């Protein structure tokens, strides 16, 4: 008894310590960032080549001012320098490698894996928590399996991250020297955070079975929280470098770092980027684990396994969708902030040279919505009673296709001279209305609502409200009214927005999104109330899914990956010939914007390499399970003496 108490106290104490550490970790980061301007500068004080030029250029000015302040400065102390004027010779060419392509390749692969391993632990933790609350071991097993899949991803993310760092230092030394001058402290903290993440990820994963019950389970949950917190810190710190390159802050007009790391981090685009990546990571993690489940579903012969992986695929799919639904709006906010920061970057992105990549983006997002709906429609097949909803699928499909066509209609139409003459105008009298944001917002909200309706139909597949309670009687009617009101509001606002100023028009996206959000939230609540008093009508069979439905899960993962690659390129490339926008110019031989087909092919090639690595990642846990199985059967088949003998003989 005493031992149990002692153990419980110890675990609770350990849990409390971890909890406190997790809670105060942001304070550590903040304190470190504000820990005097000189404390960490010493670590990054290697004098870059351009510093000498800058010092020489500044020398006459210092001679003129013979006051005490200048004389008091220690000439050996490192001090922030203006952005260098790099020349072609400042960019080493190593072994004939194209520097930009090499960095592009490594950065994109690093980001794919990083997004995956940052996203998965978020929902793993939530699923584990649900398992603890509901005491249903299936959730715990599934969360554990998700983590198992992502473990190889951690190694690959770190490997490509290391490759990227080395490539940047070797191929872009001038740029890196400048970045280190601004973000030296932040980079050191970033590196230290890896230790925290490694600690949490290994204890979380390898301690899963050991910490399965009681106080230990709580400790395990705290470790998961620590893993997610450290991952989040890593993400927002590295985001600050990307957002600084687009919208520099914390520096003067010449690019001289003003000494406040927080000001350099919290630039104009930092938070929009943080939010967008955070949500996208969850959606991306969900889509890849759904692909894993589909892979396992297709490769197993066991009925039980098929049911398990069907359920796993469905859960992953829902996670991906929950992440996807708010994603267009987070992206919209990011783009709006880009435009607000720089009209030039905003127009380059949406109206200029990259506008056609946005058409590709729209096509891929539409493809994701189409696949998602198809998966949900196929999911109805799990319940015989769902046949009563089949009549709704065709009109729903027509609405989705029409909304999708509006969604990707280009603003700039490619026309032959004959077509131009037939149209009689540079703008099409009908399609021209679909090319602007007013139509896009209407279309995407309609797509989201339609997808949610498909989801709700699936949830009702074998359920019918019973009894004479209010929600059982009127719940569905209220839900239908909500859908009609929301869609009417979305379409009306969409039409109205053609007649009002651009600034007000942009603001109208908020009530449109709110209409969608109201339906999503209220309808889910009403569903819960209805389900409390409802009866199963017929059997629901996990695993009863057609093979073709699983390929939509693969398509989902590939579309997400492609989308991330294309849009990541867009975000980065709108800086055009600047390493750091308007501050540090790219004067390498690669300081040009590649053609759109080249960029698309490059991204496609990276996606193919990534998908090959993903299958390797899926295969690793299977390989480990096979070895375990073989070992088990060996032990079960022979006697202990034989096993010892076999081991000794190795």
């Amino acid at each position: 008894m005493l031992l149990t108490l002692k153990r419980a106290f110890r675990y609770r104490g350990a849990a409390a310590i971890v909890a406190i550490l997790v809670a105060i970790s942001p304070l550590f980061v903040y304190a470190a960032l504000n820990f005097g301007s000189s404390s960490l500068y010493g670590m990054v004080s290697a004098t870059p080549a351009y510093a000498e030029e800058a010092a020489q250029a500044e020398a006459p000015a210092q001679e003129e001012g013979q006051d005490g302040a200048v004389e008091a400065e220690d000439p050996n102390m490192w001090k922030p320098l203006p952005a260098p004027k790099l020349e072609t010779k400042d960019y080493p060419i190593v072994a004939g490698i194209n520097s930009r392509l090499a960095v592009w390749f490594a950065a994109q692969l690093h980001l794919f894996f990083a997004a995956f391993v940052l996203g998965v632990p978020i929902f793993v933790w939530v699923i584990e928590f649900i398992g603890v609350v509901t005491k249903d071991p299936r959730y715990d097993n599934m969360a554990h399996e998700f983590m198992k899949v992502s473990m190889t991803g951690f190694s690959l993310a770190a490997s490509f991250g290391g490759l990227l760092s080395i490539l940047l230092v070797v191929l872009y030394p001038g740029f890196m020297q400048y970045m280190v001058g601004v973000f030296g402290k932040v980079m050191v903290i970033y590196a230290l955070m890896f230790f925290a993440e490694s600690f949490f990820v290994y204890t979380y994963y390898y301690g899963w079975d050991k910490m399965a019950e009681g106080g230990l389970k709580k400790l395990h949950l705290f470790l998961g929280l620590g893993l997610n917190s450290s991952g989040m810190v890593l993400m927002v710190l590295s985001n600050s470098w990307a957002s600084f390159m687009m919208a520099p802050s914390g520096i003067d007009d010449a690019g001289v770092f003003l000494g406040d790391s927080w000001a350099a981090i919290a630039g104009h685009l930092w938070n929009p980027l943080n939010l967008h990546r955070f949500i996208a990571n969850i959606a991306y993690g969900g889509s890849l684990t759904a692909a894993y489940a589909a892979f396992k579903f297709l490769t197993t012969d066991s009925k039980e396994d098929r049911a398990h992986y069907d359920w796993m695929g469905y859960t992953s799919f829902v996670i991906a969708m929950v992440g996807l639904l708010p994603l267009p709006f987070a992206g919209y906010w990011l783009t709006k902030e880009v435009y607000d920061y720089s009209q030039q970057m905003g127009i380059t992105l949406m109206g200029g040279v990259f506008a056609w990549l946005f058409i590709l983006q729209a096509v891929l997002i539409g493809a994701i919505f189409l696949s998602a709906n198809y998966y949900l429609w196929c999911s109805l097949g799990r319940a015989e009673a769902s046949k009563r909803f089949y009549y709704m699928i065709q009109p729903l499909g027509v609405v989705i296709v029409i909304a999708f066509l509006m969604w990707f209609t280009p603003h700039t139409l490619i026309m032959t001279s004959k077509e131009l003459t037939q149209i009689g105008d540079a703008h099409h009298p009908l399609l021209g209305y679909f090319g602007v944001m007013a139509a896009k917002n209407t279309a995407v909200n309609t797509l989201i609502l339609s997808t949610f309706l498909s989801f709700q139909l699936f949830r009702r597949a074998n359920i019918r409200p019973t009894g004479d309670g209010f929600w059982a009687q009127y719940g569905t009617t209220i839900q239908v009214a909500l859908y009609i009101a929301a869609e009417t509001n979305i379409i009306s606002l969409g039409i109205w927005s053609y007649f009002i100023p651009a600034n007000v028009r942009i603001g109208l996206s908020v009530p449109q999104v709110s209409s969608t959000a109201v339906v999503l939230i209220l309808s889910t609540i009403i569903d819960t109330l209805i389900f409390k008093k409802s009866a199963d009508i017929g059997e629901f069979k996990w695993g009863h899914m057609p093979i073709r439905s699983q390929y939509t899960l693969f398509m989902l993962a590939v579309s997400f990956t492609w989308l991330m690659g294309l849009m990541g390129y867009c975000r980065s490339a709108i800086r055009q010939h600047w390493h750091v926008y308007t501050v540090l110019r790219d004067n390498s031989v690669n300081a040009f914007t590649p053609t759109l087909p080249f960029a698309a092919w490059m991204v496609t090639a990276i996606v193919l390499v990534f998908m090959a690595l993903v299958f390797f990642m899926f295969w690793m846990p299977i390989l480990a399970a096979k070895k375990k199985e073989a070992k088990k059967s060996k032990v079960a088949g022979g006697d202990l003496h034989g096993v010892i003998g076999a081991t000794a003989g190795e």
Partner: protein
Amino acid sequence: MKILKPILIIAVGYLLLKVGIPFVGSKLHPGTWPVVPTSVLKMYMFFVVAGTLLFSTFSEDGYAGIVGPVADIYTNPKKGLLRFVSIMIVGSLGAYVAYQYVKPTFDAPVELRSIHPAPPSTVKMWGKSYSLQTLKNPLRADKANFAKNVEEGGIVFFQNCFFCHGDRMLGKGPFYQGFNPMPANFVDVGTIAQLTESFVFWRIGTGGPGLPSEATPWLSAMPIWHHLLSEEQIWKVILFLYDYTGHSPRVTAAQAH
């Protein structure tokens, strides 16, 4: 025959795009036949076909109803003639598409235009440098003389711009048919309605030759107006453009502060 339903839906979709849209468009713009450009039509049709196949095959019955007859043609030994005919049709269709791609044509090549090329951060005109990110129309704040400035802008417009952009700002002035690309239609929601005044100032001031390289091969015939007009005249004509069309200029955060 369940397979007929999706075929019918696809055929209706094609007719709507091929005939329906131009028909409605011709009622809006009499004297034109606004076809859906082939580049867009192909994308539309791809997703009409894909979408129709998806919502027709989600159930096992639907899937069997569509895949079954096709599989039957290609596997049933008794349907040799039908198989032969279908292979001939598919093959001929492929040959037709391939021929359309490779046949010689005298049409001008289709080129991607960038209607709103990105502006530079700064622009030099009249020996001065303007930051386009923060530049505002100085005359907009002058509420007392607003009507007078708009009227003067109108005079500048009709003396200089009307010949291409037209009296109703629809891009259809007396000379418009001589240009490719056509003059901008300012009434359209996709032009000045979504641009800042600084962008319009830059476009008018530097004209076609001031376009950045990304805008090529868009050979705009717009003159370099800052060689011919004063800064004040250009700001006035911008006031007139927005006032006449009823659009409001976009304002960036930097311009708002």
